[in-house]
């Protein structure tokens, strides 16, 4: 089939068909309801305002953690990519944090800081920073030294160097880190909410897990996945297309 703009929608439709087949084969609405069986539950949660309240709480946490993790990870990764000495010092830390299970960091943050919003966001941020730093470090190593020399001769300000010389070279690496970042962060946010918050999609999934209500678990999970797909299609992909415009010219 020829690749068109419709392909992503057809692909998702294929997944829905698989779900329907699995639900019909299972033939147990409590274990795996059909997509259309979720619609009344979805409408009920939307009408009551519960869905939007909890989606909103999770989105805010994801946004905070995403911005903090991307900023810190980009700064650390860039510094490590540019300085062999700094990389030698920080590389072991990176390996340790990359291999530290997310759950351990979450539990430690809750124990040390308390069951607070700050602890939740810090836990998610700390989980993601090493991944961003690792990806951006490669970008830092690949920066063109000739452009650095040009910026030095023409005395470009720090701000201009960052905006026009360094960040555009890092754009593919930042895009890769952002894309995997959004996907990983929201999953960790759900765990954080599951363990220690009283709002958010993770909290609701915890609640309906205890009630063994698979339908409601799916309603909340799928609603957030829909939001993340919109972020991917409406924000990330257009930004990526815009930053790569010069390659296609």
């Amino acid at each position: 089939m020829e690749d068109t703009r419709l392909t992503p929608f057809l692909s998702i439709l294929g997944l829905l068909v698989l779900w329907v087949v699995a639900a019909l084969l299972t033939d147990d609405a409590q274990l795996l309801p059909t997509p259309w069986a979720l619609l009344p539950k979805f409408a009920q949660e939307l009408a009551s305002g519960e869905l939007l309240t909890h989606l909103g709480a999770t989105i805010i946490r994801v946004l905070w953690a995403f911005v903090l993790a991307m900023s810190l990870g980009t700064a650390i990764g860039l510094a490590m990519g540019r300085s062999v000495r700094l990389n030698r010092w920080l590389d072991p830390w990176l390996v340790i944090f990359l291999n530290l299970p997310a759950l351990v960091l979450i539990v430690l943050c809750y124990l040390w800081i308390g069951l607070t919003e700050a602890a939740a966001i810090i836990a998610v941020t700390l989980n993601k920073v090493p991944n961003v730093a690792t990806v951006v470090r490669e970008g830092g190593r690949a920066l063109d030294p000739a452009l650095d020399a040009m910026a030095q001769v023409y005395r470009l300000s720090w701000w201009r160097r960052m905006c026009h010389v360094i960040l555009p070279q890092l754009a593919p690496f930042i895009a890769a880190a952002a894309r995997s970042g959004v996907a990983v962060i929201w999953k960790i946010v759900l765990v954080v909410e599951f363990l220690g918050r009283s709002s958010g999609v993770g909290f609701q999934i915890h609640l309906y897990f205890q009630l063994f209500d698979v339908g409601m678990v799916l309603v909340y999970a799928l609603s957030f996945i829909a939001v993340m797909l919109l972020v991917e299609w409406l924000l990330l992909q257009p930004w990526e297309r815009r930053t790569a415009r010069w390659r296609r010219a």
Partner: protein
Amino acid sequence: MTRVEITSKSFGTARVLGRVSFTIDEGETVALVGPSGIGKSTILRIVAGIDTAFDGRVERPDAVAMVFQEPTLLLWRSLRENLRIVHPALTPAEAEEALVQVGLAGKADFFPGQLSLGQQRRLALARAFAGQPELLIMDEPYASLDQETAQGMLRLTETLIARHRPATLFVTHSMQEANHLADRVLTLREGPDGATLG
């Protein structure tokens, strides 16, 4: 006046340059020639202030411009932006006029990747002259161009130097280019303690 007094320059234990001293007067064009790998580009990097790890001192004016061996452009920015990012004081109209001067009229919205190598080198020249430099440094600006394009670039550089009158130091392998463009030719020769001016 640009005054260069290098007493030595080494890379690790390898001494590349010995004593190298020269001056360039305002409006003077000086060519630096010598065999490949002798340290000509190293001298240019020291004069430009890119390489500061050397023994000696360099006095240079504030407004310095450099044309590198490769065009060294911001491939992700338009031609107009390539000029205005480096020289923020330029208005869009002035940037376009600078492009006209190097034969790139009507291409202000193009990206550098849409230009030929010769045109990219013209853009690098436009960027260098757009800041009204007091000292212009050029490192083999016509390398890897065919003879006709190189001749065109040589004439263009000559015109721009005559119009802006910066002190100019340039490296070339071609004595024809050196004699055509320069008021004075400096020759770098291998010595027992690194290269010196012969």
